[in-house]
């Protein structure tokens, strides 16, 4: 199987596109809200910490002496809490890991700006908030001045960080939760689009397999409905013309059947009276006798033609019936040839004891036709061979003539086809091979024409060994 960057099925493509868009949208929304929430959390945490520190400093500041001594600074540091450094000029009081984190940058900002400065840093794999704050003194007239004391402290922000992670996690969770309903929705959407497509495909398949009544009901007014309507129109048109052709064909066949049937009545009279003519012909003058002979010959030919036409009509109408009975193949074939005085003109090789069920009269028609053709159109010797398999038998008739020209082979079974235009006056009706083939097919077998290796036409009849009737 070759690798494909994009699945070919309409359904899979729809599904993937829909789910991707939905999940991406959900993820983006969740992510954005998680980001906003974590920002707000950080800001409020910073404010709270700063306010807290400022309050503690403000509470202790009035008790300080100026300039402060080491004890003052220590008190102030204790009041602010752990991880704190308090400085005043060269004096400093510090404890915990906070002071190590404080950068010169931060101190400069506090010292020059005389304001609270915050900074976030990461140390020991933990997030910290650094706060630098100048201690202000308030003079009796209310003005606030920098006392020169600077307080620096660090606060662990791990808890906040965890909360932010939890928020991001829930955002991812939301996106994941959306995946299932998105897939279901996509399936539904795909179905609603694909159902009419599938219906249309089924209809097209039924039409292709010959069920011309197949239609699909167009739903709605979209492009698919238009396509459905177009397919329906096409089917309608095909059905109409097929029905017309069928009717014409039926008419033609019925006409052939009716004509041959109607011909039987006058032919019955002719057949009866030409025999009377034949018995009296000896007493006629020459011209009259020859005329009588011609009338007799042509009447018999006409009878034969009408009988063949009726046989063909029965095959066309599907009213030809098989009357199988158990026979010995060699006996039937020899009887057929003997009845026509061909037994000593044909080299017959049939093993004895091939017994099978078949319609004797139909086999007689086939064998008589093949043997007759070989004797009339081929050259001696004519050979007829038969052999049997487990569930089929074969009969082969080969003559020693020039064989059938290649371009003739596909047409030898056509009705009224005569291989040699100069031989149109042969005794046959032109329907013999067509009838032989139909008889073979009625048995569930077939008949094929070809040429033998040594030249000469070769006809091969294959018949199945029919099941014993129950």
């Amino acid at each position: 199987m070759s690798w494909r960057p994009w699945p070919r099925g309409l359904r899979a493509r729809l599904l993937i596109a829909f789910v991707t868009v939905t999940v991406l949208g959900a993820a983006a929304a969740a992510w954005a809200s998680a980001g906003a929430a974590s920002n707000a959390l950080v800001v409020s945490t910073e404010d709270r910490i700063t306010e807290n520190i400022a309050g503690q400093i403000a509470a202790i500041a009035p008790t300080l002496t100026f300039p402060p001594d080491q004890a003052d600074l220590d008190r102030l540091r204790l009041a602010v809490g752990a991880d704190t450094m308090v400085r005043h000029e060269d004096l400093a009081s510090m404890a915990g890991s906070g002071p190590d984190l404080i950068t010169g940058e931060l101190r400069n900002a506090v010292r020059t700006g005389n304001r609270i400065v915050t900074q976030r840093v990461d140390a020991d794999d933990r997030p910290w908030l650094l706060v630098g704050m100048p201690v202000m003194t308030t003079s009796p007239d209310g003005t606030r001045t920098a006392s020169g004391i600077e307080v620096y402290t660090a606060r662990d922000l791990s808890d906040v960080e965890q909360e932010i992670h939890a928020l991001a996690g829930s955002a991812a969770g939301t996106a994941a939760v959306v995946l299932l309903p998105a897939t279901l929705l996509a399936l539904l959407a795909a179905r609603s689009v694909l159902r009419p497509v599938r219906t249309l495909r089924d209809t097209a398949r039924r039409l292709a397999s010959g069920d011309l009544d197949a239609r699909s009901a167009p739903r709605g007014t979209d492009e698919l409905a238009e396509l459905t309507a177009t397919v329906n129109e096409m089917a309608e048109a095909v059905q109409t013309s097929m029905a017309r052709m069928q009717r014409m064909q039926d008419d033609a066949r019925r006409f052939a059947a009716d004509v041959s049937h109607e011909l039987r009545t006058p032919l019955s009279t002719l057949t009866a009276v030409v025999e009377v003519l034949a018995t009296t012909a000896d007493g006629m003058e020459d011209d009259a006798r020859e005329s009588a002979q011609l009338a007799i010959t042509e009447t018999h030919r006409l009878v034969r033609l009408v009988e063949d036409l009726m046989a063909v009509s029965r095959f066309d109408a599907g009213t030809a019936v098989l009357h199988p009975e158990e026979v010995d193949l060699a006996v039937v074939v020899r009887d057929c040839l003997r009845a026509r005085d061909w037994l000593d003109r044909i080299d017959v090789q049939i093993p004895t004891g091939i017994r099978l069920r078949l319609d004797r009269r139909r086999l007689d028609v086939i064998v008589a036709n093949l043997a007759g053709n070989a004797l009339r159109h081929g050259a001696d010797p004519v050979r007829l061979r038969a052999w049997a398999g487990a569930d089929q038998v074969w009969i082969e008739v080969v003559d020693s003539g020039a064989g059938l020209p290649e371009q003739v082979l596909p047409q030898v079974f056509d009705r009224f086809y005569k291989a040699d235009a100069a031989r149109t006056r042969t005794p046959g009706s032109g329907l013999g091979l067509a009838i032989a083939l139909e008889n073979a097919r009625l048995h569930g077998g077939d008949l094929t024409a070809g040429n033998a290796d040594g030249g000469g036409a070769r006809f091969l009849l294959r018949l199945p060994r029919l099941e014993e009737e129950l």
Partner: protein
Amino acid sequence: MAALLLIEDDPLVRRGMQLALRRHGHDVRTADTGEAGLREFATTPPDLVVLDLMLPGIDGFEVCRRIRAAGEVPVIMLTARGDDFDVVGGLAAGADDYVVKPVQPTVLDARIRAVLRRSNGPHDGVRAHRDLHIDTVALTVSLRGAPVSLTPTEFRLLLTLSRAPGRVFGRQQLLEEVWEHHYLGDSRLVDNCVQRLRAKIEISPARPEYVQTVRGFGYRFGPV
């Protein structure tokens, strides 16, 4: 040679066949409808009826049934179509044989003679098989002492089969011996005639004792 009644509606066919059959030595009376044919039949019963199936008014099947009900005069059907429907229906109505139109008078004459030929077996007197007595000289059959009326064809079939009790006769063999058909005869003639014969001579036609079926081959008489 025989007194024939030809029932055929087409005037030209009727006349043509009458001319031809006369040449074969038969005395041919004709009728153009089934009704006229039955009247003619009742007035002077013929030796054999040649009956066209396609008739205006009452059709050939019905005519055949009425002739059969009236007696044992043999009937040969002329089937215009040669279709199974005609053949099966005609045989069920009791016809002895059928020919397909257009028929050569020589062929029809041979069929007529075959049907009328009553016996080809040795005239060896009375054959007694349990309750069934066949008199091959007087050409009569009786079952438990009561006479049984058989058509010539039925009689000939019974004679042929009972000639060798226990021996199996193939359908083709029977067609050649009883109907004198050539090797391509219609075996339905045999089956149909066997059924009619059983209806007349068997105590229980569904479980025949005298004319038994040998599946795949044909029929045999007894053994009883």
